[in-house]
């Protein structure tokens, strides 16, 4: 596969898309860990939801 004289533009475009999408996925994953950790800490300190369920209970 030859990318011709404009290979640097093509490679930069694909690399940028890959970097931004990976950052987006990592951000969502880190955010999930952060929220579940905070819920666990609240659960351990005895705070329960109005329904009586534990803070970490998701269903």
């Amino acid at each position, binding site marked *: 596969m030859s*990318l011709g004289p404009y290979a640097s533009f093509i490679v930069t475009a694909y690399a940028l898309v890959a970097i931004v*999408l990976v950052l987006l996925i990592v951000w969502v994953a880190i955010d999930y860990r952060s929220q579940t950790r905070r819920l666990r800490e609240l659960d351990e300190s005895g705070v329960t939801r109005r329904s009586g369920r534990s803070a970490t209970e998701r*269903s």
Partner: protein
Amino acid sequence: MSLKTMSLIDLANPTKFLALTARVLPWLAAITAFLLAIGLYQSAMAPDDYQQGATVKIMFIHVPNAWLSMFVWGVMSVAALGTLVWRHPLADVAAKAAAPIGAAFTFLALVTGSLWGRPMWGTYWEWDARLTSVLILFLMYLGLMALWRAVEDPSRAARAAAVLTLVGAINLPIIKFSVDWWNTLHQPASVFRIGGSTLDRAFLIPLLVMAIAFTLLFLTLHLAAMRNEILRRRVRSLQMMQANRQAA
């Protein structure tokens, strides 16, 4: 609860939404990864265009990002109606979770378009109607994200953001039809147009596969981000309960 017995109304309940998405997300992520791999392979193997040469490969990532930049705002506009008209408990969650993802797709549409424009048009940027209206869309995404961060009370932020989102939706037809209404450097629609696509199948098929893969990627990230937002609001209400208990 089985998927069959879970109705759409049940999804209005955040707890049930969390339970359902926990089961759906791994499958959705796997299908997305599979389709992305096929799309990338087809993009790599696609022939050079007789005018654009190999730079046509940038189209396979530029067009899906551009399509999603508008689609995500469309999703947020429906969610905004859900907030203002039906007061659906997940509507604002859906809109808030979609905004950063939409901003990322819009940013990528602008950057990949510039990287295609430099070798093909001889310039990275031109203040024509299509490019300028997409830049405005990107700035509107950033403005909405700033609004959600600036207003501490989620319900107040939700209403203000919903109104802004619906006002911003005026930009969507402007983006779509800018190439028809004004004399722009950007080419007119070539995929979804009256009379059918003008693209050869060798380019159309990889483009459609990539567009579906990117749409599924958005759906996956959106559902995951919605789950995070529900958990964040649960943390906030529990922290307030804890503070009230300590104050009493």
